[in-house]
């Protein structure tokens, strides 16, 4: 009994450490007071002025553009790459997966600086360089999500479709695609979250005037803390949360159906 309650307490403490900062942030975003220490009553004011702030809104727009474009493009490239890798022999697979995993483990700041050095050599830093950077670091996540699905797909089901008269394209669309779709979808979701909360790589590859939410937050926070930023951070947190939930619930429900 004692042991059990100790276990519960331990778990509770872990969750407190994990989520207390975020809870504080969320609470403060509704606080009708400019200081952090006093509770001035409940308000939506910060959310309203957050949406009226031009800087915030332009950063928000940029973020959405970059997030969705980079997620779409990296999902397409990553899925094709997964097909290529799965068709390779064992040795080639190991080498290729290793090569795609290194950027995954590499410190963001190193990736960011090296990309910046590369980009300034050929073009001006700006929207396109941020987009290119986001596509690049998202691809490995897509590959990691699609590859296991692709390996689980029985190659002979594809052959069976051909055998029954399907053209290779039709066989892929009707047989292979439905089986890897959950993997592609969760890869896409992963790419969205990665792109959404990246700071360091964006910071180094963005040009003047281009800001995503995270870099904008950083520059604004240096000037002083505005309560609108609490509201913005809260929104950002919930967007990521929803995306993650979507990505996790969908494959699970699929699994239960079977």
């Amino acid at each position: 009994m004692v042991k059990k309650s100790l276990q519960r307490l331990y778990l509770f403490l872990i969750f407190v450490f994990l989520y207390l900062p975020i809870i504080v942030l969320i609470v403060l975003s509704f606080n009708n007071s400019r200081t952090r220490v006093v509770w001035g009553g409940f308000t939506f004011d910060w959310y309203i002025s957050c949406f009226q702030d031009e800087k915030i809104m332009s950063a928000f727009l940029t973020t959405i553009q970059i997030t969705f474009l980079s997620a779409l493009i990296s999902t397409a490239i990553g899925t094709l790459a997964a097909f290529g890798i799965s068709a390779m022999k064992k040795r080639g697979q190991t080498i290729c997966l290793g090569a795609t995993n290194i950027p995954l483990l590499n410190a963001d700041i190193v990736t960011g600086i090296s990309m910046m050095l590369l980009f300034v050599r050929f073009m001006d830093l700006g929207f396109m360089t941020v987009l290119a950077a986001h596509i690049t670091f998202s691809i490995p996540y897509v590959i990691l999500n699609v590859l296991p699905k692709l390996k689980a797909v029985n190659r002979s089901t594809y052959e069976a479709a051909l055998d029954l008269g399907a053209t290779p394209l039709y066989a892929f669309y009707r047989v292979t695609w439905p089986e890897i779709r959950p993997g592609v979808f969760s890869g896409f979701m992963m790419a969205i979250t990665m792109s959404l909360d990246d700071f360091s790589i964006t910071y180094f590859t963005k040009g003047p005037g281009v800001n995503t939410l995270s870099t904008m937050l950083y520059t604004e926070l240096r000037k002083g803390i505005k309560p609108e930023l609490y509201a913005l951070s809260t929104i950002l947190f919930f967007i990521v949360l929803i995306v993650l939930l979507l990505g996790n619930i969908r494959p699970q429900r699929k699994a239960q159906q079977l």
Partner: protein
Amino acid sequence: MSKHLIEFTDISKSYDGSLVLDELNLYIRENEFLTLLGPSGCGKTTTLRLLGGFETPDKGRIHFDGADITDLPANERKLNTVFQKYSLFPHMSIAENIAFGLKIRKKSKSYIEDKIKYALKLVNLDGFERRSVDSLSGGQQQRIAIARAIVKEPKVLLLDEPLGALDLKLRQNMQYELMRLKEELGITFVYVTHDQEEALMMSDTIVVMNQGYIQQIGTPEMIYNEPENAFVADFIGHSNILDGTMLEDRLVEILGVRLPCVDEGFGQNRPVDVVIRPEDVELVSPAEGCMEGTVTSLIFKGVHYELDVMANGYEWLVHTTKHIPEGTKVGILVTPFNIQIMRKPESSDEKAVEVDV
């Protein structure tokens, strides 16, 4: 007999530099049940995949019904395959699985529904239309795979070890089922298996393969009773395979004993392989036999006892219904008709025979 429906001519195929099929020549008659039999890696599955259109040969041509189909893609061939791992489409219902090929052909809805009903009845799974693939047992899935293949009314059905994953009882049931299907459909079956009992029971013609070479083609009776070489003899069932010398027509010497036999035309004093089936060895009293031996082990096998008998330095495998305890002195007797003489492999083509029998 009926005409040749499929012809393989000088087919060679290698993967990563290792030769899987070497100059294979084979014809398949219309409406026959032909089995490709051999151990794993003998090239039987490759032969089937070449026919199905999933592989292209490095050399040689394949003709189907008079037309060259060597370069025809799988989806345009008039034959269908039942795969080893069932390969049903997991995200479709049973009816959708069966309808898959018919929808591609743009058949009418009522035609497809009739076909589904007919096919399910044929494989004894009436009323399974709406079930999901995962709710079926292995045997049922295999039946659906067969149903899915036959609704397209192929001239030839290819079966790649379709019963390999089923348990013994189910496998035996399915064997009868397949024979019945073959009768009802009246089409050609090309069957791949490594199970010699299955092959003997179901086939009209058996093609025994090893290491990319055809070892023997014949009816089950021919393959069993008159194996052409030691590999076939051993693969088709446990046998006593002995080194012998063909002294002259109708006289062979094994283990220092001269025995009359019925084979001719091997020449004089030629080394040969001699096959004697365990059920053809008669155990008599020591004085009556052509050689004397001692029973070294006795195992009860249900229908018969399996005995090892040591005689003239060779351990004979003997099947008998008599209970003869270990240590008994016995005489071994073989009637001339039951001694099967085979040439020793000579050319490189036949070398494959010697390895790991």
